[in-house]
Each structure stands twice: as structure tokens, then as C-alpha cells.
């Protein structure tokens, strides 16, 4: 039996009369890349938001490293090492790339007076190393807001790595990125997974990308878990095909 790092059991979430997630169960294994797919409006992002504590769930259990986290707030969950990136890229636009990285250090053990700590040489070095890793080293002193959308996406990914998360939830990492850059991004995601040992749960619409990366894929449709399995099984699953083509 492999080691489950995130475990969702029968999670329900509705907004008024709209049921966004109904009895969703899902397991993310430690060290693996897990994919989450589904047509637009199927409740993928809602599920992400539930996991990171953005809104309370109606019922069900969410466990991270064996600990129930469905009652915790966003910041507390982030400090446990469960980090998310946003579908619409979010960076600190008026600060330079290096500053964006500096403030993304893990705040897990930050004590009160750490608020007034200076930049340490180690932090800068790590920031520059990671910026080089995503290919933004030359642009490190530029204002983050002046970067292109794709570059901001890379910066957001580097910021997430700076935070040394245990698990990274990526909401459509390749959306809006120039097709030639996508291969580079896939490569970096895989390397982050292999070299830094970061477990990943990825929402993705680009089938080529997700089939290429994930070892296990879940498919949501109309808020319910439609199918789960290895990429090959999912690709052959008639229910999944119907859901995407609208026959559901």
C-alpha cells in the first residue's frame, strides 16, 4: 500500500442550490504527480479551493499527512506545506522578481520578530537559483507586473518552489502559455517533482500535457467523480469521452 499524502473522503460543497462537488473522494500519493481533469464547470477549482481552506466544505473529510485540515484557514494550511497556485496568475506586480521571491520564503516557523529580519544572503542566492531554474534570471530585477503573462506564470511557479512546499496544487499551469514554452514548463514541473521531491496535484485542460506527466488521473463531471485511473485507462474510458463531448 502506498503512502497517501492527501486524502479526500466524500467531500460535498454547494453554493446555494448549485452543487459544485458531490461525494468527491480522491487520494494523492506522496511523491507522485496526480492529475485532475474535467469539462469546464465540473467543480475542479472548487475542489482545489476546498482543499486549501478557501471556503468551508459542507461535509466530508480532507486529510493532509493524516491530519484533518478541513477546519483550518488558508494561511495555516499553506504553512503546513500545502500550497496552491492560481488559475489567473497572481504575483506581486509592483515588486521586482527577486522581491517576489524573497517574500515567498516559508513562514512555517516565523516568530514575531522575524517580521523585521533583513534579507539574508542565503535567501537571495536561493531566489536567484530558482529564477534561473525557471529561466527568469535575466529578468530578476524587473518589476513582476511588467513581465508577460507566461513569464508571470513561471515566476509564480518559482515563488511556489521558494516556499518549499510538500505538496503543490497547480491550477492549469499551462493555460495561456505559448505552445513552445509548454514543453519547457512540463520539463520543469517534472524536475521539481523528481529533484525537490514535491508531490503535485494538477488541474489541466491540455490532455497532451497531463497524460504526459501524471501517473494517476481523476476526472470530474458535474461535480461528481466520473473516473479514476492511469492515463491509458482514462483515455479509453467511454464515460470520460462522453463527458468531454457533451453526451453526458
Amino acid at each position: 500500500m502506498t503512502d497517501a499524502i492527501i486524502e479526500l473522503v466524500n467531500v460535498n460543497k454547494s453554493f446555494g442550490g448549485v452543487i459544485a462537488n458531490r461525494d468527491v473522494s480522491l487520494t494523492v500519493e506522496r511523491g507522485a504527480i496526480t492529475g485532475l481533469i474535467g469539462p469546464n464547470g465540473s467543480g475542479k477549482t472548487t475542489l482545489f479551493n476546498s482543499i486549501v481552506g478557501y471556503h468551508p466544505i459542507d461535509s466530508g473529510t480532507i486529510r493532509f499527512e493524516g491530519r484533518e485540515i478541513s477546519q483550518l484557514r488558508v494561511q495555516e494550511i499553506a504553512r503546513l506545506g500545502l500550497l496552491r497556485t492560481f488559475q489567473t496568475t497572481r504575483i506581486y506586480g509592483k515588486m521586482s522578481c527577486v522581491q517576489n521571491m524573497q517574500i515567498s520564503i516559508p513562514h512555517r516557523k516565523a516568530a514575531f520578530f522575524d517580521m523585521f529580519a533583513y534579507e539574508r544572503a542565503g535567501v537571495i542566492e536561493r531566489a536567484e537559483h530558482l529564477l534561473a531554474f525557471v529561466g527568469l534570471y535575466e529578468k530578476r530585477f524587473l518589476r513582476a507586473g511588467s513581465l508577460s503573462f507566461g513569464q508571470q506564470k513561471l515566476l509564480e511557479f518559482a515563488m511556489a518552489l521558494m516556499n518549499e512546499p510538500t505538496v503543490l496544487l497547480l491550477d492549469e499551469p499551462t493555460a495561456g502559455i505559448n505552445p513552445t514554452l509548454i514543453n519547457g514548463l512540463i520539463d520543469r514541473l517534472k524536475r521539481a517533482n523528481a529533484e525537490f521531491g514535491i508531490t503535485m496535484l494538477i488541474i489541466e485542460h491540455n490532455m497532451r500535457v497531463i497524460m504526459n506527466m501524471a501517473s494517476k488521473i481523476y476526472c470530474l463531471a458535474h461535480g461528481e467523480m466520473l473516473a479514476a485511473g492511469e492515463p491509458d485507462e482514462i483515455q479509453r474510458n467511454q464515460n470520460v469521452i462522453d463527458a468531454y463531448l457533451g453526451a453526458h
Partner: protein
Amino acid sequence: MSRTSLHPITIGLLLLAGVAAPLLFPAYTNQIAVLWLMIVFASTWDILGGQMGYNSLGNIFFFGAGMYTSAVVQIGLFYDVGMYTSGARTTHIVFTTAQYFTGFALGMMAAGVAAALLALATSWIVFGLRGPYFAIGTLGVAVAGAELIASWEWVGAAGGISMPVFPGAPEVQKLFFYFLLFGLAFVVLVFLRWLYSTNFGLAINAIRDDEEKAEAMGLYTGRYKRTAWAISAFFLGIAGAIFGNMTGFIEPRDIAFPTTTFNIFMILMVLLGGKGTFWGPVVGAVVFHVIKEVTWTYFLGWQFVALGLLIVIIVVYFQQGIVGWLMEKYPERFGIRVAPKEKQDLARPASLSPQPEGAE
């Protein structure tokens, strides 16, 4: 923003300006003293309003709270406060030199601490609000403070308090308060330069740029916001203590909690100078103070019309402020680098380059 302290030349120039001003313009000592107070107002408002993106309309609350705390301490150390402030009092009370200065020193410290504690207490309410709601919520705190004091007999209610009289010649008194306010402004500038160079500066900038992202990254946003609010309250409390003693008579609505004058001035000065910049509030305070003194002197009766006009002009045409405009025009001088324009962007006019978001 990476420098941890002001440049020695800057410090030297500041000290020189502070000492030379009352010697060169002895007739304007009081006006220049108030200018330093304005710099304190603008710089402390900018901690939240500029650097953290929380536009407060209630900072004046801490100014008044400090003023009254100091008054109560100064009087209460030697006399019964209720008796002192009573309208029925007929005896004349004189403070000895020793009493005056011990009381004032302790009062000033108490004012800073009390204001900071009040900031922490109110932070639980106001930081539940964002955007315009935060502005209105903080304004509510300031108005409530004024009304509370105005109906509190023990501290003289709306009638106010005559502060202990300075034991010395008027010329000495003038210089004494001048140097206190200059010293405070100097300490505030040195402190803020250091503060903005630490992680604290980065964190409140991150909150300004995207608070939800900062939360998602695990930043202790609440802790940073409360501390920022308490820091500006601390300095405003001390400023209130000094200003209360300088005017010699305090009352709640026009002197301690002037929500429509000082409270608006601090925001206006920051907008004029450039919010979110270190020198913007200082430049704004100087320009604004000169404009204000001129209109108050030569267009008396029309001064608020002139002021209103200035507000409209700044908000409509000049949102980024003087320093903000300079930074946009000559970013390299300020150590900011923006992405070099790509080829297809060459046709774009410069005004389309990333601009600071409006005044919110």
C-alpha cells in the same frame, strides 16, 4: 528599497535643515514646526495607505488619543484630573518646572504606548473590512473617539483642557516644541527607512499588491497589518502629546480629532507627493504646507475652496503624485527596471506602460 538606513549625506542635510530653519526664519518657527508635524502625519499615513494599500480615514484617532492620554498623565501625576478639568474650579493651578518636564516626558511615552494599544484593540474590528469599507470603518473609529471624549466630563468633555503652562520664556517655548517635532520627524524617517528595508517592508508591499496571494503563500498577514497599524499609531500618539502641549489648550473636535482638517491633510499630502514611496510623503507635506500657509494668509475665507480645488486637481489629474511621477519618468534613477519594450510594443505611447492603480 534595499538600503537599510538613510544615506549619511541625507541625514546631514536633514539635520542641517532642521537646525538652520528656525535660525534663518525665526518669525516662522511655529509654521516650520507644524511642517515637521505634517511630515510625521504623511509618513505614518503612508505606512498603511501607501505601502500596505489600506486607505485609512481614521489615523487622526491616535493623534487625539495620544493628546488626551498625555494630558491625563501630566495632570493626574500631581492633581486630581476631575477637579482640574472641572468648570467650577476657581483656584489657579501652577506646575513647577520639575513637575512640568517629568509630566511631559512620562505623558509622551504613555501617549505612544496607549495609542499603539488602542490600535491593536481596534485592529480586530477594522481589519475585518477591506477597500472602501476599511476607510469608512476607520473614519467611524475617529468620529467615535471625538464624540466619546466630548461627552466625558472627567476629561473636560467638549469644553477641553487647559494644558500645564510651559515654565519659561515664549521664545524658549517656541524652540523647545520646534525641536521636539523636528526630532520626532527625524526619528520617524530613520525608523521607516529601516523598517521598509526589512522583510516587513516586503510583506506589506505584498499585501498591497495581492493580499489573497499573500495569504495563500502562508504569510501571517494579520500580524503584519496589526503591527503596521500599531506603529503608525505609536508615532501619531507621541505627535499628539507634543502638539497638545504646544497649543496649550486641547478640545476634542477641532484640535484632538480634527477629522476634516489634519485627517484629510495627511491623505492629501501623501497623494500629492506620491503614495507608496519613501520621499513622496515628505515632498507632499512640504508643498502642501506651503500652499496651505499661503492660502490661509492671503485668501482667508477662501482657503477651503482652494483646498477643495487642490483635492480635485490631485485626484483627477495627478494621482501618482510628484515622486510617483518622477519614478515613472526616470525609473532608472530610482533603481527600478521595467521590461524593455518588445518590438511590437514600439508603437505604443509611453503612457500605456504599467501605471500605478488609481487612488482606489
